């Protein structure tokens, strides 16, 4: 099955991004395909390469990038939500790209299931 994910919350402050990550990993291991993860609201902060968690904690920003490159997942950060929060090309982590909200609607059209992670 082709899956589309929407991550609505920022890293560390909220577990939504971690849950989405583990969901994606589990789905892929069962043979499903994750077409794209769209980061919206504070979720755009998941793409900030300046993020530097303590060494004994997970680095969810890096984890997304690695998962994306291993399984060809399109990680898209919303441009409008990003600009508001200072998330621009200059601080964009590996594996992510910035684009418009239309990419979320397109994902809804392309995916068999769209799953939202947030409150």
């Amino acid at each position, binding site marked *: 099955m082709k899956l589309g994910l929407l991550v609505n919350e920022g890293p560390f402050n909220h577990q939504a991004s971690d849950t989405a990550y583990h969901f994606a990993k589990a789905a892929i291991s069962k043979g499903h395909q994750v077409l794209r993860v769209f980061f919206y609201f504070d979720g755009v902060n998941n793409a900030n390469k300046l993020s530097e968690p303590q060494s004994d904690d997970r680095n969810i920003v890096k984890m997304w990038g690695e998962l994306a490159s291993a399984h060809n997942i399109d990680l898209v950060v919303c441009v409008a939500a990003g600009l508001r929060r200072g998330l621009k090309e200059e601080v964009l982590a590996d594996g992510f790209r910035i684009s418009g909200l*239309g990419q979320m609607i397109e994902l809804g059209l392309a995916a068999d299931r769209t799953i939202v992670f947030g409150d």
Partner: protein
Amino acid sequence: MPEDSIFETKGVKKNFMFVCNKAPYGTIYALEALEMIMISAAFEQHAVIVFIDDGVFQIKKGHNTKSTGMKNFSPTFGVVSMEKEDADEDDEIDMVWRIVVEKESIEARGLSEEDLVLETEVLSSGELSDLMAKQDVILTS
């Protein structure tokens, strides 16, 4: 199709539901959810926009944000209304937009249809649940 399309979605028609369930101010959810709804219009998909829980306050008349310094986005709902009317009236556009408010949510908050800036369909939670089950994509904030 607007923007840089990557997936093959030409001719795909789906039923989208946008669930607006958060108060208009205090957090950014309502404002950014509305931005998503506006963008979706360009894709000419069927959409149900639902106001439920504290989300019903998003479309209450008389927002005044002056003292808090927050952006008053209430006028944008006028554009939502226009999009819906355009879709309803233009036979060339194969897109139906429905604007729904949950009956229990407005009642619990002492509101009635007359208090709202949008013309809405009032559905009970049971009816809304049936409508939800028919959607292809449900986006919540």
